[in-house]
């Protein structure tokens, strides 16, 4: 948890997300998606703001299909907040940073 989003794949999903301690925010994205580019800097800022409290990871859905399909991701960008292996909040599309931060704070 060093304040920077960590790029992970399907193979690390269990270890890095489901079995992780504390809340984990997962950003499902792809290089060909315009709105994902708008969300990326916001996700980076969230990683900084919640450093040490929330782990932030990114899953490229172009290279990884298992984890997005397990959580029925059908639209990107999608952010899902996990805690103790459970998906608690799903946020689809571009949302202002403060709105996302409020959703995260509710689960701290």
């Amino acid at each position: 948890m060093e304040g920077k989003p960590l790029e992970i794949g399907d193979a690390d999903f269990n270890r890095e997300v489901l079995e992780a301690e504390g809340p984990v925010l997962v950003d499902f994205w792809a290089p060909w998606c315009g709105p994902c580019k708008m969300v990326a800097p916001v996700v980076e800022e969230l990683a900084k703001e919640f450093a040490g409290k929330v782990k932030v990871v990114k899953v490229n859905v172009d290279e990884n299909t298992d984890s997005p399909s397990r959580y029925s991701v059908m639209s990107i960008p999608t952010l899902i907040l996990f805690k103790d292996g459970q998906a608690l909040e799903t946020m689809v599309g571009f949302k202002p940073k403060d709105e996302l931060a409020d959703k995260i704070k509710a689960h701290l």
Partner: protein
Amino acid sequence: MYDMIILGGGPAGLTAALYGGRAAYKVLLLEPGAFGGKIASAAWVDNYPGFHKGIEGAELGQLLAQHAERFGVEAKKLKVEKIDLAGSVKKVIASGKEYLAKTVIIATGTPGTLPRALGAEGEEEFMGRGVSYCATCDAPFFKNKDVVVIGGGDEAMREALHLSRFARKVTIVHRQKQFQAAPKLLQKAEAEPKIEFMLETAVKKFEGQQLLEKVMIEDLKTKRQQELEAQGAFISVGRLPDTEFLEGLEKDEKGYIITNENMETSIPGVFAAGDVRRKSLRQVVTAAADGAIAATMAIKYLEKL
């Protein structure tokens, strides 16, 4: 009370903030996303004067933000939802909170970037579970599935053509008697065997358990309703001018704000700068120039109060 509230932290808003801050006025900048605006998504910028070797868009955005920061500009990560410009004190509402200012500079970028919603039952419920507004983003999730595209313009045809590379079947549903898309695009779509067409048909409802399974459609001539199996529905019924919330300002038919060469809008004390206003060249250098002029004219206005 602020002297100046700036809406949008792209090149226009950041330059206005730099001018306002440097002149020691109390400035508030409101920006929901990352600073830098659209230029932050440009891979490389080769035509901003002074950077003779070119610069990454993201870096230019950060430098513009740092420049405004240096002059003590206060910034909040908020999206402005409403403004009330009627009185001499302007009210700006963001995330439900009200901020007051003597002048307002609007620098929210090109209108028309947000997709328009269809307004059918279940649309919101199934957003991200089958209902989508971006085929480029989401088409790969619908490999070998049946999808519908709702709309009849150029973008709807492009979305359908893109989807046909992934989906099993694509049905374009459109309310009108004919499509508005350019003939060439329409021909291309008609030549694609996976694409089917339904004219004079309206989408009434999106249905399913967890994920989208069916779309209820109505034949507008016979009023007969029918279910269409679809795991995906791509809505392409135009884009919202994001300036709709900026009520009371004079705009052109596309939603661009009309200003004079001093960036003054139809309301005294309210200025517009950058891509959001009606102009002939939308670039970083002209956005920055607009921002400088808007802030300078706002300062002139403040001096007269």
